[in-house]
């Protein structure tokens, strides 16, 4: 029979660089052949557009952070299955210029990508400091221009992610007053697959995860080939080895399926999903006609459903992860 073709979109982002390597090194092809599928990796340059393209049907899978997964494809009615692959552990940060306490943010104008994970992080930061969400003004700012924006005299507060955070930090007067390490695991990233596609051909997930863990094994391990891999990932992210290593420290990439499964099954994951759902609801990201935060259902790894169980659009998948964890891929 004809090999099914599967398109996975990705963008240049520290923890996701191994996908590019997996493709170039042939690892991806090896796994795809093993499961008799074609996997086409499509590189985009714009994160939002990659999720939009996934939502609109141009891509079968994509990489995304949970808040965006909920507010873009899920909100657009695309039934999505996710496989967590990493979480931000300091890669996202709230930065103040010249001030070093989080409470100093009150009354400031904050530059950030509105309605993104950064926005979510900002809201979480405000909550921990007992501030209201509208104690700050927000200016929508393109992520490509965070660094330049920060250097401009009229910017005093910014919420950004790596590698921009590091660039900003090098300016001297920047203080990280809150970062993703303080909300352990709430900003986690996953491979998103269209549930319908996955049902059609579960082997796709096996091939993807097989390739992923093989590549990540090198990066998280100590083998001699690691140096070469890191060098090529650094080049592809337009930085040098030291820079890329530094960036890697701010994220946690799950080395194997066991870790991913354990992460998905933590009780905190449910809290995170509820928070993400409320965040989307707070800013009307689900569209005007969705009055109820529970309109969309989220199925947790253990089968429990948060929200409307008749309209489940976001789900975890245990089976493939379990196979992988058992080393049976």
């Amino acid at each position, binding site marked *: 029979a004809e090999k099914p073709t599967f398109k996975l979109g990705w963008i240049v982002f520290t923890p996701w660089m191994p996908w590019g390597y997996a493709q170039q090194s042939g690892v991806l092809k090896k796994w795809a052949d093993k499961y008799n599928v074609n996997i086409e990796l499509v590189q985009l340059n714009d994160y939002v557009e990659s999720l939009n393209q996934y939502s609109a049907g141009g891509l079968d899978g994509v990489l995304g952070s949970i808040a965006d997964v909920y507010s873009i494809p899920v909100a657009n009615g695309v039934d999505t299955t996710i496989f967590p692959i990493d979480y931000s552990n300091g890669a996202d940060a709230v930065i103040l210029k010249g001030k070093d306490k989080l409470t100093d943010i009150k009354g400031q104008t904050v530059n950030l990508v509105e309605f993104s994970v950064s926005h979510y992080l900002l809201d979480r930061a405000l909550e921990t400091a007992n501030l209201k969400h509208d104690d700050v003004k927000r200016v929508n700012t393109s992520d490509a221009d965070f660094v330049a924006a920060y250097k*401009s005299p009229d910017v005093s507060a910014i919420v950004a992610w790596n590698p921009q955070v590091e660039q900003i930090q090098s300016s001297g007067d920047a203080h990280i007053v809150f970062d993703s390490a303080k909300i352990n695991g709430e900003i986690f990233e996953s491979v998103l697959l269209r549930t319908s596609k996955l049902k059609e051909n579960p082997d796709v997930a096996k091939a993807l995860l097989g390739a992923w863990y093989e590549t990540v094994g090198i990066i998280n391990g100590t083998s001699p080939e690691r140096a070469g891999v890191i060098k090529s990932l650094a080049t592809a992210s337009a930085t040098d080895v030291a820079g890329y290593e530094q960036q890697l420290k701010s994220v946690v990439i799950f080395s194997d399926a066991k870790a991913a499964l354990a992460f998905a099954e933590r009780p905190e994951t449910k809290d995170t999903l509820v928070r993400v759902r409320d965040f989307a609801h707070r800013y009307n990201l689900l569209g005007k006609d969705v009055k109820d935060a529970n309109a969309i259902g989220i199925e947790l790894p253990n089968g429990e459903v948060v929200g409307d169980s008749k309209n489940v659009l976001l789900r975890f998948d245990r089976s493939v992860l379990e196979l992988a964890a058992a080393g049976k891929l």
Partner: protein
Amino acid sequence: MARLLNTKPSQGLTIALGAAPFIAVASVYAFASAERLLVNARDNLLPSLTTMLGGLQRVGFEPDPISGHLVIVADTLASLERLGLGLGIAAIIGLCIGIAVGLIPLARATLAPFIAVLSIIPPITLLPILFIAFGLGDVSKIILIVIGIAPFIARDIAARTQEIPKEMLIKAQTLYGSTWLITLHIVLPQIFPRLLESIRLSLGPAWLFVLSGEAIAAQSGLGYRIFLVRRYMAMDVIIPYVIWIGLLAFTLDLALRWGAKRLSPWSQPGSTR
């Protein structure tokens, strides 16, 4: 055996034919939209007309709960202010430099090559420098428009100024004309209608620059809204906004055309066919 070249449609047919492509596009859209919505009722890429009316209702008729303004009105005013200021400044700079380059050989030698190069460099790529030099506010956005448009206007005006017959400038000098008086009374009034024409031609790029500037950092504006709602792919807002921008651009275009005609009554000879 009518010949295509000579077959002129009647007035009614002209209107019908003119409407046809619009109707065709609308039909293709309606069809594609219905198709997609059948598959996924929540799909937002090609919203139905009803959904778009809803989107328009939200941004155009319900005041924003926080600011109390109508979103589309506030956005339009913000964008038009940037566009107006940017185009205005670009026009003034372009006019001054263009006339100088076209009229004064020394200015031409000095500025012509520089403007030629400047007009070629895509200004978007220099945005970081603009931000740091002029801040993230409206100033940068306006300067983006100015840098993008002024070289074009200057070149166009310079070319037109050079088209003024030498004889006319000589004659003016024999009538006590100094460089200044000639600029003021002979060149400026003849060039002015062309300036409007030149602005008209740069409206397209100017809108592009407004939208690009607003996409990068802003709190309001048509570009801001489009790029913001793009986060949740709200094409039900984006498509009405795009149509609205088209309408605005069309109106500006008409106004400038009309202005250029009004400003040069002398260039329309009586009634030649």
